[in-house]
């Protein structure tokens, strides 16, 4: 649409957001044109009324139209012209009010579409895409930034049409009344624009500096707040105060330095406007009283009115770049989301996961996509259906990375991961992830009841099935103890249950998928050992399901069919507990750091 042509290619993602709201988007400027046109008639009618009615001149503005009106004396003339004025303003009111409504419909609809598109796009993000954005920054993009664009869009529909049209129409009217006097605008134009543009040009650097100082100060404050315990325990209050005082003073100076330019803006505009008024009175007045002059007082007054409107509109127009630059940052942030390349798309496939067999075949992986910085190196594994597999290793050694390959949360760089005999890339994501259920390390429940949360696993799960899954995950006990049982509301982010309870509910939710493969990524860290053992027992009763367990605690994996020891992105060793204890130094170290011989003795 028009908007695109005006501001370049950065708007291509916004274009579809107008869909469904094209009519109000077009109607708003049209109505505003009518409103302005009617408004602009009023001074002209006033001139006719003053010159024809008050001074009883034979020639007056709009004579061609007015003389056709059915009036027979001066009184009727005045009432007719006055009536026309009132009519014009009423119609203008109507157009203006309608435009307000259409602009609201258009801009709110635009925002709705935009928000939805951003949300949908973010939902398409793969894990890798998600890693590139902070959660908080995504939220800001979908809320504050959308709000900024919505305001800009509305301003665009209303102001950016209104001011230029007003300027042009008022200028036309002025020229119509008196060409020579109207040249005064031609002088006024650069007088208003030049300083404004100059201020903006100089001001931009200063404002940038100011915002930078403000950011620095705010992040220092934030750091101080986050580290308050450190500040207080080292008794550094007055030291921090001193630092802050300096940066606050500095900010104040920069603020004044940046904004003082704009102290000139308003006076300059007023000066130009009033200067033009005085010049119009001066030259117009002389014209009005000269023998060959034909500028009646009413027309002169109208001219002065138009001059004020032209300059005020011009001032408005000169502010547009500033307003648009404010929204630029928001637009850029939103475009970043739209332009993010989704790196995992779901293939069309009818394949379903049949068994819990998993094979890793020379798998390399890198979060950065750089083959020189591998996070997984040459992984080879074969896991049989129904096996229980433990994964052990320090933080950052690649445990989570390894298991995330199985439900294809990331794509391998080289090699392949096969589930149930097929490469994971051959399944549709839905089929694959229904077959491979994963409980993430950083897990989450959502607002709504426990039952609703459980149905994430299976939308059609019966109450009985939900109960069954919760029993295996040792969650049924405490859920039933809640006064509202499975109807208990979990609150935003599941904040109404404790860490250990949350973990158990997350396991139950994953079980409801009835997956062929269940992956627990450090999912019982907040559950006590006794309960954990019960959960392990419960899970082992599901014979067909392959279970992969990442754990810090050696006790959690001791009984597994295979234990994988990860180090620096490689499989350092695979085996059973007893073998590893003999063979793997890392495993032994971990074991010993947790369970000392002296205790066992």
């Amino acid at each position, binding site marked *: 649409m028009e908007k695109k042509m005006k501001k370049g290619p950065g708007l291509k993602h916004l274009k579809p957001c107008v869909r469904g709201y094209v009519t109000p988007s077009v109607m708003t400027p049209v109505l505003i044109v009518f409103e302005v046109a009617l408004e602009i008639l009023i001074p002209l009618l006033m001139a006719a009324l003053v010159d024809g009615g008050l001074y009883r001149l034979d020639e007056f503005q709009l004579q061609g139209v007015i003389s056709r009106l059915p009036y027979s004396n001066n009184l009727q003339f005045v009432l007719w012209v006055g009536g026309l004025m009132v009519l014009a303003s009423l119609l203008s009111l109507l157009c203006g009010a309608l435009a*307000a409504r259409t602009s609201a419909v258009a801009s709110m609809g635009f925002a709705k579409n935009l928000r939805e598109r951003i949300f949908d796009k*973010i939902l398409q993000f793969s894990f890798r895409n998600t890693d590139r954005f902070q959660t908080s920054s995504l939220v800001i993009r979908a809320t504050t930034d959308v709000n900024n664009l919505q305001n800009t869009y509305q301003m665009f529909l209303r102001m950016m049409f209104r001011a230029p049209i007003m300027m042009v129409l008022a200028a036309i009217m002025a020229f119509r009344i008196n060409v020579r006097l109207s040249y005064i605008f031609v002088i006024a134009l650069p007088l208003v624009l030049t300083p404004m543009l100059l201020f903006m040009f100089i001001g931009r650097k200063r404002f940038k500096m100011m915002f930078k100082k403000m950011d620095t100060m705010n992040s220092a404050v934030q750091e101080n707040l986050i580290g308050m315990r450190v500040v207080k325990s080292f008794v550094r209050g007055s030291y921090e105060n001193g630092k802050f005082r300096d940066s606050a003073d500095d900010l104040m100076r920069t603020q004044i330095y940046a904004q003082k330019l704009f102290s000139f803006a308003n006076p300059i505009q007023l000066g130009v406007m009033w200067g033009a008024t*005085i010049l119009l009175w001066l030259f117009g007045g002389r014209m009005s009283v000269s023998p060959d002059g034909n500028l009646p007082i009413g027309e002169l007054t109208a001219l002065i009115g138009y001059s004020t409107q032209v300059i005020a509109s011009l001032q408005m127009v000169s502010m547009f770049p500033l307003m648009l630059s404010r929204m630029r940052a928001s637009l850029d942030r939103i475009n970043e989301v739209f332009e993010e390349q989704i790196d995992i798309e779901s293939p069309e496939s009818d394949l379903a996961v049949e068994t819990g067999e998993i094979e890793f075949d020379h798998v390399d992986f890198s979060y950065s996509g750089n083959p020189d910085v591998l996070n997984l190196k040459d992984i080879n594994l074969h896991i049989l259906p129904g096996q229980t597999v433990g994964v052990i290793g320090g933080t950052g050694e690649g445990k989570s990375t390894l298991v995330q390959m199985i439900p294809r949360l990331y794509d391998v760089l080289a090699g392949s991961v096969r589930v149930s005999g097929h490469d994971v890339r051959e399944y549709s994501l839905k089929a694959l992830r229904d077959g491979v259920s994963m409980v993430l390390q950083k897990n989450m429940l959502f607002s709504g009841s426990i039952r609703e949360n459980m149905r994430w696993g299976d939308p059609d799960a019966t109450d009985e099935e939900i109960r069954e899954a919760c029993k295996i995950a040792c969650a049924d006990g405490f859920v039933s103890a809640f006064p509202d049982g499975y109807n208990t509301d979990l609150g935003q982010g599941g904040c109404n249950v404790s860490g250990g309870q949350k973990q158990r509910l997350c396991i139950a939710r994953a079980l409801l998928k009835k997956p062929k493969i269940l992956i627990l990524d450090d999912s019982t860290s907040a559950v006590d050992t006794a309960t954990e053992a019960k959960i392990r027992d419960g899970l082992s009763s599901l014979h067909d399901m392959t279970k992969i367990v990442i754990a810090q605690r050696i006790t959690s994996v001791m009984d597994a069919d295979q234990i994988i020891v990860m180090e620096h992105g490689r499989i350092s060793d695979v085996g059973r507990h007893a073998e590893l204890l003999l063979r793997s130094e890392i495993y032994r170290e971990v074991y010993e750091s947790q369970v000392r011989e002296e205790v066992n003795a």
Partner: protein
Amino acid sequence: MPPRGGSFNSKMGGKRAEKPLKTLLRLFRYFKNCTGILIVSIISILAYSAASNYAVLMTKKLVEVLEAGIGADMAKYAALLIGMAILYAIAVVTNFLLNRLMLSCSARVMCALRKEMFEKMQSLPISFFDGRTHGELMSYYTNDTEAVNELLHHSITQMLISISSLVFVFGLMASLSIPVVFIMICMGVTVFYVMRGVTRKSRRNFKKQQFELAAVNGYIEEMMEGQKVVKVFTHEDKAKAGFKVHNDELCKVATDANTYASIVGPLMNNISHIFYAITCTVGVLLAAPVPGEEFLLENTWFASHQAFLVEGSALIASLQFVRQVSNRISQISQQFNSILLALAGAERIFALIDMPAEVDEGTVTLVRVEHQNGKLRETDRRTGYWAWKRGDELIPMRGEVVFTDVDFSYDGKKQVLSDVSLYAHPGQKIAFVGSTGAGKTTITNLINRFYDIADGTITYDGIPVREIKKSALRSSLGMVLQDTHLFSGTVMDNIRYGRLDATDEECIKAAKIANADFFISHLPEGYQTQLVADGANLSQGQRQLIAIARAAVSDPPVLILDEATSSIDTRTEKHIEKGMDALMHGRTVFVIAHRLSTVRNSDCIMVLENGRIIERGDHDALLKERGKYYELCTGTSELS
């Protein structure tokens, strides 16, 4: 841990001030350092309103001259124009003065407010920070400060200009024509009521909008937060559908709310046009007839009441005022609302400033001492010896901490510690073991008096901690916490945070003790490496080592290690262990740990459960006891 506040939603649309006048007056008190500026500003406002409006009034005189036609007195006309130019010049100058002065003034007041806020925050008790999210706290410095800045910089002056202009305009118009003033009053009343009606409607709708907006924002927040879970459960379509419901509802209410907000402009603008038309028509009808012409309302009541006649020149001058009046009235009503909103920001800031600071009734201070002839003597030299100074009495600092029957609760309801008694001899290592929420961290919060106990006593070298000045108490305690907080600055700066007057050599020595020197010297710029955003460019373990070095440089007699190594895996911990051991040597140490390997060599291990010490003794003794600790060690029971 005490509960944290809920999610923080933006305050747009927001709350209006509860005590606007009181807050405004209090805000004005900050101007006391710029009274001069304030007086000049007020004079400027009055001069600006008077000059700009009187200039408009001069239109009447100009028109009067021009009405004479060809024989007009152009000398007088020129003189009038010069007068008008002078008036406008005055208005321009005062307008500039006003803008510039208010800028300086507001920037200064903002600066003072920011400092006061920050200083206040440094003095608030830790419970204040525990009970609020970072977003909430930052909002004081961003949203609220911005609102007040806008208020001081623009809104208040604009409001004063509007009011004084309105007064001048009415005064001047009364001198022009009574009927016109009457029409203006009608307009004023109309504008006022229309504005009031629209504002009311709009406020009601904005409330609804805020509600829906919060719902949409909450939904977005939650789904973004749980995005990976959404992916794992291929729940995308459901999430989309859920969002659409909220989003559509928001769009509906927002459209209504926005309509009311948008309609104000055209409404006010066109109402003024209507009254302009009325004024013009009525004015012409009532115009005193030009010589040789008849009065338009001949044979009516007006013909016989000369006072109601309008001079032509007066009419033309009045017409210039019509827009002025309607603009000013609608400005006042709009500014009124925005001033109330901004004052709500000021109110929040003042509420913060008024919060009671951490109480410090302690008088006992910490001083450096030297031994002379077997007696202690206060000194300024760094002797390595400290003493508590109570009155004139010097009590040697040894690092002995005693808890007797301590009870504590964060909220006054839920008991977190009950009947805790413990005795830490100087140089001993005391460990606390227990589940999350058992009260381990609480105990350390009480030693350094982040929180005060409800019942019982805590003494430090025999002195009740309440009697010790907080600053003295805390500087005698070194803390290494689970979440390592480093500050922007160099590695050296961060270590020096432990003792500001430490030399580079002392900092490096501390880093060596903490086993951190090795990795620091391998950083690209060694000790001068800049740390960014809470030390994010270092690994968790490295940050922890710097924090240990920071505690080492402060060289405290008592050390508190609160889960200092819990976020490091067991193997990495082994490498830090040496540094920790060196640091702990010769000090009283309180260790809180999730992991038993960390606490094994403690002199005394306290096992906490539900705020009570259920077992105590050294490792061997506790194993023999075959209680909870034994279960923990043998893995039959686990901490949560």
